Protein backbone atom coordinates (compact mmCIF):
# COMPACT_ATOMS: atom_id res chain seq x y z
CA UNK A 1 0.00 0.00 0.00
CA UNK A 2 1.08 3.57 -0.63
CA UNK A 3 2.69 5.41 2.31
CA UNK A 4 0.81 8.43 3.62
CA UNK A 5 1.97 11.89 4.62
CA UNK A 6 0.63 12.59 8.09
CA UNK A 7 1.28 14.24 11.45
CA UNK A 8 2.70 11.58 13.72
CA UNK A 9 1.17 10.45 16.97
CA UNK A 10 -1.44 13.11 17.70
CA UNK A 11 -3.14 10.78 20.18
CA UNK A 12 -0.97 7.91 21.34
CA UNK A 13 -1.06 5.25 24.01
CA UNK A 14 1.50 3.59 26.18
CA UNK A 15 0.08 0.30 24.93
CA UNK A 16 2.21 -1.42 22.33
CA UNK A 17 0.56 -1.50 18.90
CA UNK A 18 -0.64 -4.86 17.63
CA UNK A 19 1.47 -6.23 14.78
CA UNK A 20 0.38 -5.07 11.33
CA UNK A 21 0.30 -8.73 10.34
CA UNK A 22 -2.34 -9.50 12.99
CA UNK A 23 -4.37 -6.34 12.39
CA UNK A 24 -4.58 -7.05 8.67
CA UNK A 25 -5.31 -10.81 8.79
CA UNK A 26 -7.80 -11.11 11.65
CA UNK A 27 -10.78 -9.12 10.47
CA UNK A 28 -14.52 -9.05 10.80
CA UNK A 29 -15.75 -7.85 7.43
CA UNK A 30 -18.69 -10.11 6.63
CA UNK A 31 -19.08 -8.71 3.12
CA UNK A 32 -15.93 -10.70 2.38
CA UNK A 33 -16.79 -13.80 4.43
CA UNK A 34 -17.53 -14.60 8.05
CA UNK A 35 -14.25 -16.29 8.91
CA UNK A 36 -11.74 -13.80 10.28
CA UNK A 37 -9.18 -14.97 7.74
CA UNK A 38 -11.59 -14.48 4.80
CA UNK A 39 -11.31 -10.70 4.29
CA UNK A 40 -7.52 -10.72 3.98
CA UNK A 41 -7.83 -13.49 1.42
CA UNK A 42 -10.71 -12.19 -0.66
CA UNK A 43 -10.84 -8.39 -0.27
CA UNK A 44 -7.48 -7.17 -1.68
CA UNK A 45 -8.00 -8.60 -5.17
CA UNK A 46 -11.66 -7.68 -5.37
CA UNK A 47 -12.36 -4.38 -3.65
CA UNK A 48 -11.86 -1.53 -6.08
CA UNK A 49 -11.02 1.52 -3.96
CA UNK A 50 -10.36 4.03 -6.79
CA UNK A 51 -12.21 5.91 -8.09
CA UNK A 52 -14.28 6.24 -4.92
CA UNK A 53 -16.90 8.75 -4.02
CA UNK A 54 -19.14 9.42 -1.06
CA UNK A 55 -22.69 10.70 -1.18
CA UNK A 56 -23.42 13.25 1.55
CA UNK A 57 -27.09 13.99 2.07
CA UNK A 58 -29.86 14.76 4.52
CA UNK A 59 -30.05 17.64 6.96
CA UNK A 60 -27.18 19.77 5.71
CA UNK A 61 -26.72 22.91 3.61
CA UNK A 62 -24.17 21.41 1.21
CA UNK A 63 -25.20 17.91 0.19
CA UNK A 64 -23.68 16.22 -2.83
CA UNK A 65 -21.46 13.50 -4.20
CA UNK A 66 -17.84 14.08 -3.43
CA UNK A 67 -14.78 12.25 -4.70
CA UNK A 68 -12.63 10.54 -2.08
CA UNK A 69 -9.69 12.86 -2.86
CA UNK A 70 -11.78 16.00 -2.49
CA UNK A 71 -13.28 14.71 0.73
CA UNK A 72 -9.94 14.11 2.41
CA UNK A 73 -7.55 16.61 0.78
CA UNK A 74 -8.54 19.78 2.72
CA UNK A 75 -7.55 18.08 5.97
CA UNK A 76 -4.25 17.31 7.58
CA UNK A 77 -3.89 13.58 8.16
CA UNK A 78 -3.17 12.65 11.77
CA UNK A 79 -1.99 9.47 13.39
CA UNK A 80 -4.12 8.22 16.24
CA UNK A 81 -3.02 5.16 18.19
CA UNK A 82 -6.26 3.74 19.57
CA UNK A 83 -7.43 0.68 21.42
CA UNK A 84 -9.90 -1.37 19.42
CA UNK A 85 -12.23 -3.62 21.39
CA UNK A 86 -14.35 -6.12 19.48
CA UNK A 87 -17.73 -7.09 20.91
CA UNK A 88 -16.53 -10.71 20.69
CA UNK A 89 -14.03 -10.19 23.50
CA UNK A 90 -10.70 -9.54 21.82
CA UNK A 91 -8.84 -6.29 21.35
CA UNK A 92 -5.98 -4.67 19.46
CA UNK A 93 -4.04 -1.41 19.50
CA UNK A 94 -4.00 0.18 16.07
CA UNK A 95 -2.16 3.26 14.78
CA UNK A 96 -4.78 4.75 12.48
CA UNK A 97 -4.19 7.60 10.06
CA UNK A 98 -7.18 9.79 9.40
CA UNK A 99 -9.01 13.05 9.87
CA UNK A 100 -11.27 14.14 12.72
CA UNK A 101 -14.79 13.33 11.57
CA UNK A 102 -16.23 16.48 13.14
CA UNK A 103 -14.01 18.81 11.11
CA UNK A 104 -14.92 16.98 7.93
CA UNK A 105 -18.65 16.96 8.64
CA UNK A 106 -18.70 20.72 9.32
CA UNK A 107 -17.81 21.37 5.69
CA UNK A 108 -21.25 20.09 4.72
CA UNK A 109 -22.90 22.53 7.13
CA UNK A 110 -25.29 20.27 9.03
CA UNK A 111 -28.50 22.10 9.95
CA UNK A 112 -29.99 22.38 13.43
CA UNK A 113 -32.19 19.41 12.51
CA UNK A 114 -29.16 17.13 12.17
CA UNK A 115 -29.31 15.07 15.35
CA UNK A 116 -27.70 11.90 14.02
CA UNK A 117 -25.28 10.83 11.30
CA UNK A 118 -25.86 7.64 9.37
CA UNK A 119 -23.11 5.81 7.48
CA UNK A 120 -23.57 3.22 4.75
CA UNK A 121 -20.97 0.73 3.48
CA UNK A 122 -20.43 -0.33 -0.08
CA UNK A 123 -22.61 -3.31 -1.02
CA UNK A 124 -21.53 -4.59 -4.42
CA UNK A 125 -22.10 -8.27 -5.14
CA UNK A 126 -19.43 -8.30 -7.84
CA UNK A 127 -16.77 -7.19 -5.40
CA UNK A 128 -18.07 -8.70 -2.18
CA UNK A 129 -18.71 -12.46 -2.21
CA UNK A 130 -20.12 -12.39 1.34
CA UNK A 131 -23.18 -10.42 0.21
CA UNK A 132 -24.64 -13.59 -1.28
CA UNK A 133 -25.22 -14.82 2.26
CA UNK A 134 -28.11 -12.89 3.81
CA UNK A 135 -26.65 -12.71 7.31
CA UNK A 136 -27.05 -9.00 7.85
CA UNK A 137 -29.45 -6.74 6.08
CA UNK A 138 -27.04 -5.42 3.45
CA UNK A 139 -25.81 -2.77 2.96
CA UNK A 140 -24.11 -2.50 6.36
CA UNK A 141 -25.22 0.65 8.13
CA UNK A 142 -24.08 2.41 11.26
CA UNK A 143 -24.90 5.63 13.05
CA UNK A 144 -23.77 8.07 15.68
CA UNK A 145 -25.45 10.79 17.63
CA UNK A 146 -24.29 14.17 16.40
CA UNK A 147 -22.24 14.91 19.54
CA UNK A 148 -20.53 11.53 19.24
CA UNK A 149 -19.73 12.21 15.60
CA UNK A 150 -18.33 15.66 16.43
CA UNK A 151 -16.23 14.39 19.35
CA UNK A 152 -12.51 15.00 18.71
CA UNK A 153 -11.66 11.32 19.27
CA UNK A 154 -13.89 10.20 16.40
CA UNK A 155 -12.02 9.95 13.11
CA UNK A 156 -12.50 8.89 9.54
CA UNK A 157 -9.47 6.71 8.86
CA UNK A 158 -7.84 6.39 5.46
CA UNK A 159 -4.78 4.50 6.65
CA UNK A 160 -3.10 2.52 9.37
CA UNK A 161 0.52 1.84 10.29
CA UNK A 162 1.52 4.80 8.13
CA UNK A 163 0.05 3.34 4.94
CA UNK A 164 -3.22 3.43 3.07
CA UNK A 165 -5.84 1.14 4.59
CA UNK A 166 -5.67 -2.45 3.37
CA UNK A 167 -8.90 -3.50 1.64
CA UNK A 168 -9.75 -5.93 4.44
CA UNK A 169 -9.57 -3.13 7.01
CA UNK A 170 -12.20 -1.06 5.24
CA UNK A 171 -10.41 0.84 2.49
CA UNK A 172 -10.50 3.50 1.36
CA UNK A 173 -12.44 5.21 4.14
CA UNK A 174 -13.73 3.94 7.45
CA UNK A 175 -15.02 5.22 10.73
CA UNK A 176 -13.06 4.77 13.97
CA UNK A 177 -14.87 5.38 17.26
CA UNK A 178 -12.44 4.06 19.86
CA UNK A 179 -14.76 3.96 22.88
CA UNK A 180 -17.36 1.80 21.11
CA UNK A 181 -17.29 -1.85 20.12
CA UNK A 182 -15.53 -2.39 16.82
CA UNK A 183 -18.63 -3.04 14.74
CA UNK A 184 -19.67 0.60 15.15
CA UNK A 185 -16.58 1.59 13.15
CA UNK A 186 -18.13 0.96 9.74
CA UNK A 187 -15.91 0.14 6.78
CA UNK A 188 -15.69 1.28 3.14
CA UNK A 189 -18.14 4.16 3.51
CA UNK A 190 -20.08 5.30 0.43
CA UNK A 191 -22.84 7.35 2.03
CA UNK A 192 -23.13 9.81 4.90
CA UNK A 193 -26.56 11.09 5.85
CA UNK A 194 -27.51 13.69 8.44
CA UNK A 195 -30.85 12.91 9.99
CA UNK A 196 -33.25 14.13 12.62
CA UNK A 197 -34.14 10.63 13.77
CA UNK A 198 -32.01 7.76 14.95
CA UNK A 199 -30.99 5.68 11.94
CA UNK A 200 -31.32 1.90 11.79
CA UNK A 201 -27.96 0.18 12.24
CA UNK A 202 -26.97 -3.24 10.91
CA UNK A 203 -26.15 -5.25 14.06
CA UNK A 204 -28.87 -3.58 16.09
CA UNK A 205 -31.31 -4.60 13.35
CA UNK A 206 -30.04 -8.15 13.42
CA UNK A 207 -30.25 -8.66 17.20
CA UNK A 208 -31.43 -5.61 19.15
CA UNK A 209 -31.06 -7.34 22.52
CA UNK A 210 -27.44 -8.16 21.84
CA UNK A 211 -26.20 -5.04 20.03
CA UNK A 212 -27.46 -1.66 21.13
CA UNK A 213 -27.37 1.55 19.14
CA UNK A 214 -24.75 3.03 21.45
CA UNK A 215 -22.60 -0.08 22.00
CA UNK A 216 -20.16 1.77 24.20
CA UNK A 217 -17.50 -0.57 25.55
CA UNK A 218 -18.77 -1.42 29.02
CA UNK A 219 -17.39 -4.20 31.26
CA UNK A 220 -20.49 -3.90 33.45
CA UNK A 221 -22.99 -4.70 30.74
CA UNK A 222 -22.53 -8.21 29.40
CA UNK A 223 -23.50 -9.36 25.98
CA UNK A 224 -26.49 -11.67 26.64
CA UNK A 225 -24.41 -14.66 25.58
CA UNK A 226 -20.94 -13.80 26.87
CA UNK A 227 -19.17 -11.65 29.43
CA UNK A 228 -17.69 -8.27 28.52
CA UNK A 229 -15.72 -7.96 31.76
CA UNK A 230 -12.44 -9.09 30.22
CA UNK A 231 -10.80 -9.19 26.83
CA UNK A 232 -7.92 -10.96 25.16
CA UNK A 233 -5.48 -8.46 23.69
CA UNK A 234 -4.24 -10.02 20.48
CA UNK A 235 -0.63 -11.07 21.05
CA UNK A 236 -1.16 -11.60 24.78
CA UNK A 237 -2.02 -14.87 26.48
CA UNK A 238 -3.91 -13.87 29.64
CA UNK A 239 -7.18 -12.00 29.49
CA UNK A 240 -7.10 -8.44 30.77
CA UNK A 241 -9.89 -6.40 32.34
CA UNK A 242 -11.96 -4.36 29.91
CA UNK A 243 -12.07 -0.65 30.73
CA UNK A 244 -15.22 1.49 30.79
CA UNK A 245 -15.52 3.27 27.44
CA UNK A 246 -12.48 1.23 26.40
CA UNK A 247 -10.26 3.47 28.54
CA UNK A 248 -11.58 6.76 27.10
CA UNK A 249 -14.05 7.48 29.92
CA UNK A 250 -12.29 10.70 30.86
CA UNK A 251 -12.85 12.10 27.38
CA UNK A 252 -16.30 10.72 26.51
CA UNK A 253 -18.25 9.73 29.65
CA UNK A 254 -19.74 13.23 29.71
CA UNK A 255 -21.58 12.53 26.47
CA UNK A 256 -23.74 10.06 28.34
CA UNK A 257 -24.36 11.97 31.56
CA UNK A 258 -27.77 11.14 32.96
CA UNK A 259 -28.26 8.11 30.73
CA UNK A 260 -28.78 4.63 32.18
CA UNK A 261 -26.09 2.71 30.29
CA UNK A 262 -27.69 -0.62 31.21
CA UNK A 263 -30.76 0.38 29.25
CA UNK A 264 -29.06 2.43 26.54
CA UNK A 265 -26.37 -0.18 25.86
Amino acid at each position, binding site marked *: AAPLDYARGVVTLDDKPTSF*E*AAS*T*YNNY*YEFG*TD*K*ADPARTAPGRLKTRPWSVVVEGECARPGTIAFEDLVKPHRLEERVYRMRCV*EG*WSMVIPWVGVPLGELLKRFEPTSKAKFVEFVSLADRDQMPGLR*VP*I*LNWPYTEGLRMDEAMHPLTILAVGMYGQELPAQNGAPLRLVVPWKYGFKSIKSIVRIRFSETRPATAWND*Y*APREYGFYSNVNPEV*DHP*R*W*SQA*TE*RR*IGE*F*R*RRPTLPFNGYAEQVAGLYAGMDLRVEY
Partner: protein
Amino acid sequence: MARWLKPGVFALSLMPLAWLAWRAFSDDLGVNPVETINRTTGDWALRFLLLALAVTPLRRVTGWAPLARLRRMVGLFAFFYVCLHLASYVGLDLFFDWQALLKDVAKRTYITLGMGCFVLLLPLAVTSTDGMIRRLGGRAWRRLHRLVFPASVLAVAHFWLMVKADIREPLLYAVILSLLLGSRLWRRGRA
Protein backbone atom coordinates in the same frame (compact mmCIF):
# COMPACT_ATOMS: atom_id res chain seq x y z
CA MET B 1 -8.77 -55.62 6.25
CA ALA B 2 -10.89 -55.97 9.38
CA ARG B 3 -7.70 -56.67 11.30
CA TRP B 4 -6.32 -53.25 10.52
CA LEU B 5 -9.60 -51.43 10.98
CA LYS B 6 -9.25 -50.63 14.67
CA PRO B 7 -5.58 -49.63 14.79
CA GLY B 8 -6.07 -47.68 11.57
CA VAL B 9 -9.03 -45.71 12.90
CA PHE B 10 -7.21 -45.22 16.21
CA ALA B 11 -4.25 -43.64 14.43
CA LEU B 12 -6.53 -41.53 12.21
CA SER B 13 -8.45 -40.30 15.24
CA LEU B 14 -5.27 -38.90 16.72
CA MET B 15 -4.49 -36.92 13.58
CA PRO B 16 -6.51 -33.79 14.49
CA LEU B 17 -4.61 -33.55 17.78
CA ALA B 18 -1.30 -34.25 16.08
CA TRP B 19 -2.03 -31.56 13.49
CA LEU B 20 -2.96 -29.06 16.19
CA ALA B 21 0.18 -29.90 18.15
CA TRP B 22 2.26 -29.48 15.01
CA ARG B 23 0.72 -26.08 14.33
CA ALA B 24 1.36 -25.02 17.93
CA PHE B 25 4.93 -26.28 17.68
CA SER B 26 5.59 -24.36 14.46
CA ASP B 27 3.88 -21.20 15.75
CA ASP B 28 1.11 -21.53 13.18
CA LEU B 29 -2.01 -21.14 15.34
CA GLY B 30 -2.90 -17.79 13.83
CA VAL B 31 -3.52 -14.40 15.36
CA ASN B 32 -5.58 -15.71 18.29
CA PRO B 33 -4.00 -19.05 19.29
CA VAL B 34 -6.26 -19.66 22.29
CA GLU B 35 -9.32 -19.24 20.11
CA THR B 36 -7.84 -21.54 17.46
CA ILE B 37 -7.17 -24.30 20.01
CA ASN B 38 -10.57 -23.90 21.57
CA ARG B 39 -12.42 -23.93 18.25
CA THR B 40 -10.42 -26.82 16.80
CA THR B 41 -10.86 -29.12 19.80
CA GLY B 42 -14.56 -28.21 19.96
CA ASP B 43 -15.04 -28.90 16.25
CA TRP B 44 -13.45 -32.33 16.58
CA ALA B 45 -15.36 -33.20 19.73
CA LEU B 46 -18.58 -32.56 17.84
CA ARG B 47 -17.41 -34.42 14.73
CA PHE B 48 -16.39 -37.51 16.72
CA LEU B 49 -19.66 -37.45 18.59
CA LEU B 50 -21.53 -37.53 15.29
CA LEU B 51 -19.15 -40.17 13.92
CA ALA B 52 -19.84 -42.36 16.94
CA LEU B 53 -23.55 -41.99 16.28
CA ALA B 54 -22.98 -42.86 12.63
CA VAL B 55 -21.28 -46.20 13.28
CA THR B 56 -24.43 -48.25 13.84
CA PRO B 57 -26.48 -46.81 10.93
CA LEU B 58 -23.43 -47.27 8.71
CA ARG B 59 -23.07 -50.88 9.78
CA ARG B 60 -26.73 -51.52 9.01
CA VAL B 61 -26.54 -49.87 5.62
CA THR B 62 -23.32 -51.58 4.55
CA GLY B 63 -23.96 -54.85 6.39
CA TRP B 64 -20.27 -54.86 7.31
CA ALA B 65 -20.20 -56.31 10.82
CA PRO B 66 -16.62 -55.32 11.80
CA LEU B 67 -17.74 -51.69 11.94
CA ALA B 68 -19.48 -52.45 15.23
CA ARG B 69 -16.10 -52.84 16.88
CA LEU B 70 -15.35 -49.18 16.19
CA ARG B 71 -18.25 -47.74 18.12
CA ARG B 72 -16.71 -47.68 21.58
CA MET B 73 -13.38 -46.37 20.36
CA VAL B 74 -14.89 -43.54 18.31
CA GLY B 75 -17.15 -42.65 21.22
CA LEU B 76 -14.18 -42.50 23.57
CA PHE B 77 -12.34 -40.30 21.12
CA ALA B 78 -15.35 -37.97 21.15
CA PHE B 79 -15.01 -37.81 24.93
CA PHE B 80 -11.26 -37.33 24.59
CA TYR B 81 -11.74 -34.27 22.36
CA VAL B 82 -14.52 -32.99 24.65
CA CYS B 83 -12.00 -33.15 27.52
CA LEU B 84 -9.37 -31.31 25.48
CA HIS B 85 -11.97 -28.68 24.54
CA LEU B 86 -13.00 -28.24 28.17
CA ALA B 87 -9.38 -28.12 29.31
CA SER B 88 -8.55 -25.45 26.75
CA TYR B 89 -11.55 -23.38 27.85
CA VAL B 90 -10.80 -23.67 31.56
CA GLY B 91 -7.01 -23.63 31.34
CA LEU B 92 -6.15 -21.44 28.36
CA ASP B 93 -9.17 -19.19 27.94
CA LEU B 94 -10.12 -18.60 31.58
CA PHE B 95 -6.67 -19.40 32.96
CA PHE B 96 -8.24 -21.40 35.82
CA ASP B 97 -10.34 -18.47 37.00
CA TRP B 98 -12.85 -20.71 38.79
CA GLN B 99 -15.10 -17.81 39.73
CA ALA B 100 -15.38 -16.77 36.11
CA LEU B 101 -16.07 -20.40 35.21
CA LEU B 102 -18.93 -20.69 37.71
CA LYS B 103 -20.38 -17.42 36.49
CA ASP B 104 -20.12 -18.56 32.88
CA VAL B 105 -21.78 -21.91 33.57
CA ALA B 106 -24.60 -20.29 35.52
CA LYS B 107 -25.17 -17.29 33.26
CA ARG B 108 -24.35 -18.23 29.70
CA THR B 109 -26.70 -20.65 28.08
CA TYR B 110 -24.21 -22.01 25.58
CA ILE B 111 -21.66 -22.72 28.33
CA THR B 112 -24.37 -24.34 30.45
CA LEU B 113 -25.34 -26.57 27.53
CA GLY B 114 -21.72 -27.46 26.83
CA MET B 115 -21.16 -28.38 30.47
CA GLY B 116 -24.39 -30.38 30.43
CA CYS B 117 -23.05 -32.32 27.46
CA PHE B 118 -19.83 -33.08 29.34
CA VAL B 119 -21.74 -34.20 32.44
CA LEU B 120 -23.91 -36.56 30.35
CA LEU B 121 -20.90 -38.05 28.57
CA LEU B 122 -18.85 -38.57 31.74
CA PRO B 123 -20.72 -41.68 33.01
CA LEU B 124 -20.62 -43.14 29.49
CA ALA B 125 -16.86 -42.85 29.37
CA VAL B 126 -16.54 -44.29 32.86
CA THR B 127 -18.73 -47.29 32.04
CA SER B 128 -17.10 -48.04 28.72
CA THR B 129 -14.89 -50.91 29.92
CA ASP B 130 -15.83 -54.56 29.45
CA GLY B 131 -15.85 -54.97 33.24
CA MET B 132 -18.38 -52.17 33.70
CA ILE B 133 -20.60 -53.55 30.95
CA ARG B 134 -20.61 -56.91 32.74
CA ARG B 135 -21.27 -55.35 36.12
CA LEU B 136 -24.13 -53.19 34.87
CA GLY B 137 -25.60 -55.85 32.67
CA GLY B 138 -26.26 -55.34 28.98
CA ARG B 139 -29.76 -53.92 29.37
CA ALA B 140 -28.93 -51.30 31.99
CA TRP B 141 -25.74 -50.44 30.15
CA ARG B 142 -27.56 -49.88 26.87
CA ARG B 143 -30.17 -47.74 28.58
CA LEU B 144 -27.52 -45.65 30.27
CA HIS B 145 -25.69 -45.15 27.01
CA ARG B 146 -28.74 -43.68 25.36
CA LEU B 147 -27.58 -40.53 27.13
CA VAL B 148 -25.39 -40.00 24.09
CA PHE B 149 -28.51 -38.80 22.23
CA PRO B 150 -29.37 -35.84 24.51
CA ALA B 151 -25.64 -35.17 24.90
CA SER B 152 -25.22 -34.70 21.15
CA VAL B 153 -28.26 -32.46 20.97
CA LEU B 154 -26.68 -30.33 23.71
CA ALA B 155 -23.39 -30.29 21.81
CA VAL B 156 -24.99 -28.95 18.63
CA ALA B 157 -27.05 -26.42 20.59
CA HIS B 158 -23.88 -25.32 22.41
CA PHE B 159 -22.22 -24.58 19.07
CA TRP B 160 -25.33 -22.94 17.63
CA LEU B 161 -25.71 -20.49 20.52
CA MET B 162 -22.02 -19.64 20.46
CA VAL B 163 -21.84 -18.28 16.92
CA LYS B 164 -22.47 -14.60 16.40
CA ALA B 165 -24.53 -14.61 13.24
CA ASP B 166 -23.41 -17.11 10.62
CA ILE B 167 -25.30 -20.26 11.61
CA ARG B 168 -24.47 -22.26 8.47
CA GLU B 169 -21.92 -24.50 10.19
CA PRO B 170 -23.99 -25.39 13.28
CA LEU B 171 -26.95 -25.85 10.94
CA LEU B 172 -24.99 -28.47 8.99
CA TYR B 173 -24.21 -30.35 12.21
CA ALA B 174 -27.86 -30.08 13.25
CA VAL B 175 -28.98 -31.60 9.93
CA ILE B 176 -26.51 -34.49 10.23
CA LEU B 177 -27.56 -35.12 13.83
CA SER B 178 -31.24 -35.07 12.83
CA LEU B 179 -30.54 -37.67 10.14
CA LEU B 180 -28.65 -39.88 12.59
CA LEU B 181 -31.33 -39.64 15.27
CA GLY B 182 -34.14 -39.76 12.71
CA SER B 183 -32.86 -43.01 11.21
CA ARG B 184 -33.14 -44.61 14.65
CA LEU B 185 -36.65 -43.33 15.23
CA TRP B 186 -37.65 -44.54 11.80
CA ARG B 187 -36.34 -48.05 12.57
CA ARG B 188 -38.16 -48.14 15.88
CA GLY B 189 -41.34 -47.03 14.21
CA ARG B 190 -41.13 -49.89 11.72
CA ALA B 191 -40.11 -52.55 14.24
